[in-house]
């Protein structure tokens, strides 16, 4: 599994390939990772770099971008429609794009509505589903619906043939496996015996001996009106079953295709690392392609320098003596205090930098490409920022 060992570098690509090489050969890149690790920004930066250096039409499908990033990509108020990032925005950032950069936001509610219209047997059924209060709740709130719909929309966009590469930013998902299993779960949902059972009474009003206790208990807990609402909703939804299941299977097939790869994003904090490791092993178990691991916001390499650490230790110990020779800088007590602060701060940061370096080594074998992105002073909200960040991990 592992390649030849190389000295670890804190930024840029490591291991057996580069992101540039990986993305040049793929049509779909799905970015995943814990919330708060900078997944959206990494997805946007990867798409930007692909449009700059690989050419072709590149689309970034994003879920919940920060306002200013959305503005930078020209996404304001455009919702579910793909829009081209203006060439001027790229030129202003000092780059000459070889290809086209497109961006789209995922609007869960609208995507669900489109899906219902597509799969409902007729316009009347579609309208009844769309107007059902339970449907409103399912499409808006139900966490798995976000996951499924992101994959569904990806499938649709890929099939349109308009893009050479699609980079997808996934919803921040609590449990990574839910998202991978989303198409399969949706298919199960529609084909399950329980669905038939729930919708049974509305159809026949004959409750058999086996299911009677279930209805009695459910009635007692939830009230029969609510239960009937549920039954009606499922009955309507069931009309979409054949188209839907077929579609879910196609989506799943696409995710397993060689043209699709996954990019796991994480920072080197304990909790996101655990999520990333879990995700990498889930990808392996389910035979998805773990193309890249991107380590975001890593501390700079100079913090690992052992010579600098020795300097810091001596400065801390000899601060008062050193201050005597540095009276040009200020009063000796102040100089000594500053030297001690500086030294201690370095040693503190080194503890964290060493932990990060070790985590990087431990995680590297799990993905084909491992790339690190340095911690920038400010958050990134414009195209030039995306380019700056992208260059740090691209080749």
């Amino acid at each position, binding site marked *: 599994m592992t390649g030849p060992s190389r000295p670890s570098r804190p930024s840029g690509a490591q291991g057996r390939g580069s992101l540039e090489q990986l993305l040049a050969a793929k049509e779909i890149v799905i970015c995943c990772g814990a*919330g708060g690790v900078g997944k959206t920004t990494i997805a946007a930066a990867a798409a930007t770099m692909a449009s700059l250096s690989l050419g072709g039409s590149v689309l970034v499908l994003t879920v919940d971008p920060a306002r200013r990033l959305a503005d930078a990509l020209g996404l304001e108020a455009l919702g579910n429609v793909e829009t081209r990032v203006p060439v001027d925005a790229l030129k202003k950032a000092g780059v000459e794009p070889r290809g086209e950069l497109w961006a789209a936001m995922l609007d869960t509610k609208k995507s669900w509505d489109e899906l219902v219209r597509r799969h409902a047997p007729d316009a009347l059924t579609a309208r009844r589903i769309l107007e059902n209060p339970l449907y409103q709740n399912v499409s808006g709130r139900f966490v798995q619906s976000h996951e499924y719909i992101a994959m569904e929309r990806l499938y649709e966009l890929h099939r349109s043939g308009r893009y050479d590469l699609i980079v997808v930013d996934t919803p921040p998902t*609590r449990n990574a496996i839910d998202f991978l299993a989303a198409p399969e779960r949706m298919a199960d949902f529609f084909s399950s015996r329980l669905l038939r059972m729930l919708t049974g009474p509305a159809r026949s009003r004959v409750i058999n001996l086996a299911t009677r206790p279930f209805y009695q208990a*459910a009635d007692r807990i939830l009230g029969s009106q609510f239960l009937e609402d549920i039954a009606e909703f499922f009955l309507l939804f069931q009309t979409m079953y054949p188209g839907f299941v077929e579609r879910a299977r196609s989506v799943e097939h696409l995710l397993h295709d060689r043209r699709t790869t996954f990019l796991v994003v994480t920072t080197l904090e304990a909790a996101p690392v655990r999520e990333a490791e879990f995700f990498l092993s889930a990808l392996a178990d389910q035979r998805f392609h773990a193309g890249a691991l991107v380590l975001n916001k890593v501390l700079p390499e*100079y913090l690992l320098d052992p010579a600098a650490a020795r*300097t810091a230790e001596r400065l801390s110990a000899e601060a008062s003596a050193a201050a005597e020779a540095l009276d040009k*800088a200020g009063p000796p007590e102040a100089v000594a205090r500053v030297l001690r602060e500086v030294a201690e701060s370095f040693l503190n940061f080194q*503890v964290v930098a060493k932990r990060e370096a070790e985590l990087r080594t431990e995680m590297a074998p799990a993905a084909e490409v491992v790339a690190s992105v340095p911690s920038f002073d400010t958050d990134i909200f414009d195209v030039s920022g995306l380019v700056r960040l992208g260059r740090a991990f691209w080749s």
Partner: protein
Amino acid sequence: MTTPLLDRRLLFVTGKGGTGKTSVTAALAFLGAQKGRKVLACEVDAKGDLADFFEASKVGFRPREVQPRLFAMSMSTEESLQEYLRLQLHLPFVARIGPLARAFDFVATAAPGVREILTVGKLVYEARERHYDLVVADASASGHVVGQLVAPKAIDDLVRVGPVHNQTGWMLDILGDSAVTGLVIVTTPEEMPVNETIELVGRVRAETNVDVAAIVVNRVLPELFSHSDEEVFERLREPELAAVVAGVAGGPVEAVFEAARLAVTLRRTRAGHLDRLRDAVGSDVPLLFLPYLFARGHGLRTTAQSAEALSAELGY
């Protein structure tokens, strides 16, 4: 007069992913127990991390004492349902009805708020029954917590009759009582988490009746220099003096100076975000600051350190 944080009985801890929600939950629970309260810490998302902060093995639905007076549990909606059916509806054998158990998962997936109310309901129940002095929940991240907190109201609207309807009433009372219940939002002093916190405070105030009890600002970098000390630092970085420093230290100083520069810059950009946060949420919500911990990892030791810092911030 607002009720002090640890004098409430039910705290929901939320925040943007990656801000340290679980470690703050652990620190609050640890501090509560140190101050003599019997505490229940509950992990809602069941990622299995909470126990790590107490160096304990993984906890389940049944609370286990992991530190003196501190009990930990992990939420399970299925077990919560079974407990509910047994205690509230006196349906002891219902779990044995095969279809019900499976149908539950199904209904909970499709019907709004069922899963959420079993989570929130269990926590509110524990607070009401006073099995513990303080219940601290590591709740869902900011994107989903509002959905959890409004679940009793949503159910109340959908289910018009029956025992479920009757029980949402007292839940809403407890959640809306700021002497009992509070929401704690965890953030870091960075742009995105601060934006999300401001947005969440707005949503919580508009959509729920739950009181925002505190905002915990986690991972605050230390202020290295006073204003005059920073001038000294800038002079030391000039080539002539830097060479003297290198001579005394007997080694290169560029990296050491660069690291200090980084710490100062990070601290400064972050201070701006905190000013924005303060302006946006108003002065009635206390901001509690927790220092960045330069540690090898997280465990009981860092939990105790965070608890100590919280204790100072709360004025104990």
